[in-house]
């Protein structure tokens, strides 16, 4: 079977510094994009914490992979969805979230997921 272009969704459900999940998820997204596969990123549940702007990984000597989020457009990753319901539940204002991301409700997330070929969760 030959190499085919597929659309990928990556769902993040883990907070920023929970093991390396956020970092290893981002690594996977970037490599997929570098192979010119369409990639959408979804942040739901505690995953929404990854998208908060003012985080400072260096304060706790963690790897600052979050900084790379600002460069996602450079990798042609432009479909970034953050779950409004999860933000609300955690008392996070949508204005605190990565500007390149789209805050949307879970119904929109569901319909976006339906049209991806491969879904990975982290």
């Amino acid at each position, binding site marked *: 079977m030959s190499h085919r272009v597929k659309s990928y969704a990556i*769902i993040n*459900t883990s907070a920023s510094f929970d093991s390396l999940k956020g970092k290893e998820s981002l690594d996977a997204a970037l490599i997929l994009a570098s192979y010119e596969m369409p990639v959408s990123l979804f942040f739901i549940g505690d995953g929404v914490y990854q998208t908060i702007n003012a985080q400072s990984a260096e304060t706790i000597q963690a790897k600052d992979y979050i900084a790379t989020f600002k460069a996602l457009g450079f990798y042609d990753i432009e479909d970034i969805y953050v*779950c409004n319901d999860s933000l609300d539940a955690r008392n996070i204002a949508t204005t605190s979230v990565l500007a390149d991301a789209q805050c949307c409700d*879970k119904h929109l997330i*569901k319909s976006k*997921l339906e049209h991806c070929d491969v*879904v990975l969760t982290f």
Partner: protein
Amino acid sequence: MKPLPPTIHLIRTSAFADNKLQLCIDTLGVNDELFLLDDGTYNVNHALLTNLSNPVYVLDEHLTSRAVSAAEFEVINYVDLVQATVKAGKVITWQ
């Protein structure tokens, strides 16, 4: 337009301990199917599944090893699981 084949969701953790099943249900399509594996089999007794209209299947070995019974759900084996993934549009794993 031909309907998309269903997405199947593999649930691998207990909803009594974490929120993975809830996150799955929040984005569940109307034709999607749930497969309870590993500690996900404990969810046969969780209220989140009580009123769910989607089909729910449970892996026999994982129930037996945990001494859990699942009168209300269809119990399957690995071959059934493989066949379901073959028919599915895609597989989403919650772990």
